[in-house]
């Protein structure tokens, strides 16, 4: 990798923290047993597994028995939605799924499949133009037919944080199961499941300096879910498959570090992020912040620029050495505004030109200045290309 390149796409993924990697390494070859085995190799692996589970439970303020390890955030979302919807139908005949229009595809496409193939009714709840669900607005939807409500904690594209605890309280009042996708949130926000009043909560390690390929789902005690993956009965029968011990250890360690260093990370990132947003809105004509100006992830800045093609912009930025992301770009070159951007009510002319800049623990003020010094010119070039 070219050392002059600057990575500003930490919401896509993060590098593994060296401390996390150190914890993981012994479990690839030295302590390699199958946690389901009876012998001492198995016992050592099981000890690591249960230790990790306790660490994660501590981070989520829940019981170890409420933590299910999965292969990623998307799998957690799948297990939560499909598992809880099918169980709710079986137990009480509930047939409606409520989601927000700003969900990650792991939730929205799962809900769509449940509607298309399993006969559920999927209803999209209203959001305001900052992409946030307003709790009082969802009350009319909370009927006895609702199997599950799923609302993203902090949106990946626009960074807006939803009032999860308030929504959780409403759902609990109505006796309805509530899931939140906390994949983006877990790096910077509290995932205290008790305070958030959630029944199900998804995380994925690679968003907080853990490895890719490992996630977890909080399943509150007493909540029934039907497994998506059956087999040897691991993870309390909810997620069969041999435990991926090194990655589970990595997730636990990364979550531990994220929580221990959260305040320091936010203190480092928030002023940088605010500086970035301020200068972009000031220096680039026809620019607009997307998502909530304050209630947003502290490392997250997202914009739309009128008359810009997001694909072109990302290409020009990459050529200038900056790795960013866009809600309208697509690797197959068929850019369309994302569902999330359209849900904000943006006009196409604006929504095509989205840009997401997400900072990480290693991002420096010098990098941000360097980026800001070049961005206006790059936006101008991108606009010229659209004529």
């Amino acid at each position, binding site marked *: 990798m070219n050392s002059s390149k600057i990575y500003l796409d930490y919401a896509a993924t993060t590098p593994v923290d060296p401390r996390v990697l150190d914890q993981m390494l012994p479990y690839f070859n030295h302590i390699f047993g199958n946690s389901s085995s009876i012998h001492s190799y198995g016992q050592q692996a099981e000890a690591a597994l249960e230790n990790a589970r306790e660490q994660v439970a501590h981070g989520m303020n829940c019981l170890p028995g409420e933590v299910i390890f999965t292969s990623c955030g998307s799998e957690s979302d799948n297990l939560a939605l499909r598992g809880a919807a099918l169980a709710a139908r079986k137990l009480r005949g509930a047939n409606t799924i409520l989601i927000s229009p700003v969900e990650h595809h792991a939730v929205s496409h799962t809900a769509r499949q449940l509607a298309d193939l399993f006969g559920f009714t999927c209803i999209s709840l209203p959001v305001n133009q900052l992409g946030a669900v307003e709790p009082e607005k969802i009350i009319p939807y909370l009927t006895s037919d609702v199997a599950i409500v799923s609302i993203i904690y902090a949106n990946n594209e626009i960074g807006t944080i939803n009032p999860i605890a308030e929504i959780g309280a409403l759902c609990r009042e109505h006796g309805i199961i509530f899931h939140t996708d906390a994949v983006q949130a877990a790096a910077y926000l509290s995932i205290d499941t008790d305070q958030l009043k959630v029944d199900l909560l998804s995380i994925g390690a690679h968003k907080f300096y853990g490895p890719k390929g490992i996630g977890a789902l909080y399943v509150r005690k007493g909540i029934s879910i039907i497994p998506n993956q059956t087999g040897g009965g691991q993870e309390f029968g909810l997620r069969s498959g041999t435990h991926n011990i090194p990655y589970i250890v990595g997730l636990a360690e990364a979550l531990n570090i994220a929580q221990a260093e959260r305040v320091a990370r936010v203190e480092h990132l928030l002023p940088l992020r605010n500086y970035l947003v301020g200068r972009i809105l000031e220096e680039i004509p026809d620019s607009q912040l997307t998502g909530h100006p304050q209630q947003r992830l502290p490392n997250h800045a997202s914009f739309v620029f009128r008359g810009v*093609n997001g694909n072109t912009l990302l290409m020009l930025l990459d050529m200038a050495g900056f790795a960013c992301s866009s809600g309208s770009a697509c*690797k*197959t*070159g*068929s850019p369309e505004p994302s569902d999330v951007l359209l849900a904000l009510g943006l006009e196409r002319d604006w929504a095509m030109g989205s840009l997401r800049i997400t900072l990480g623990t290693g991002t420096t003020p010098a990098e941000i200045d360097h980026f800001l010094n070049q961005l206006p010119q790059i936006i101008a070039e991108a606009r*010229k*290309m659209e004529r």
Partner: protein
Amino acid sequence: MTSPGHVVVAMSGGVDSSVAAALLVQQGFQVTGMMLRLWNEPGSEAENRCCTPDAMQMARRVAGKLGIPFYTIDAQEIFKQTVVDTFVNEYARTVTPNPCLVCNRHIRWGFLFQRALAIGANFMATGHYARVQQVGQGSWQLLRAIDHQKDQSYVLHVLQQDQLAQSIFPLGEYTKSQVRQLAHQFNLPVAERSESQDLCFLGNDDYRNFLTRHSENIQNPGPILDRSGKKIGEHQGLAFYTIGQRKGIRLASPIPLYVLDKDSTRNTLIVGPLEELGKDELIASEVNWISGKCPEHPFEANIKIRYKAQEVTGSITPLSDQKVHIKFRSKLRDITPGQAAVFYTDQVCLGGGIIQPD
């Protein structure tokens, strides 16, 4: 070693453009791969010949292997407007267009070329089989490829001096079989695709079905006449027939009948026996002179009236800057309005123009 410059390679995932990119990397260029996302009918994304998700994946793998950046460029809207709509409109006015020419002029050496220059590239390269040669200060010639079987200068005759000056055709000096070998030597993960002459946006569909879906007045039945004016049948719409066509006219006749002419003003298809087919002259307009200068006097040249046609000698008389009259020594059976007539002297492609209806 100083780099000979920054070049954008138009990549398709196929063997030709992949080897072109690899050769440029080997020659020390700073190389950036780009792939155009072209238009296809909604729902037929997987059938488009040149920019399917598979082809894109392949191009991405090649770029990864070569260690070059790769970007896809959305050209769906402009491709639909300039290439596809023109294709339909040209058929509707009963000529037989060659959309690849329009694409090369407006999409590759228009839309993509501008983007390549805009990102600071000095050159654009493609996997076409053709050569560019500098002849004196600021003057460039388009030459046939070494491999005459594969030569694609016909579809490049629309290029002009400023474009040639910044175009590279790395495959022009190689034969197709050498290119295949090179792909092997470079260890490129390219799939051999069938070299269909079909148009990319048609997928596997027949152009007649496509036209029917995209133009309301394509299906426009009218009389089929012989040269004497006798009505001998009914046609389905002039767009569905090509000059020289024999099959599919659906006439009961003791001798084979060929499409001789299409009279669009009277919506009439003229047919006749083989002897009556063909003409020994044509008018071409929208002529591009690659040198930038229209010759002052009539001259002899070798002329191709279709991409895959045999070359024939003819005498070219400029009528105006962009219009010529061409006289052949004998009758040619496939002079088709809408196709290009392209002129050569030995290895040099001089330019060409679009054959006009009578």
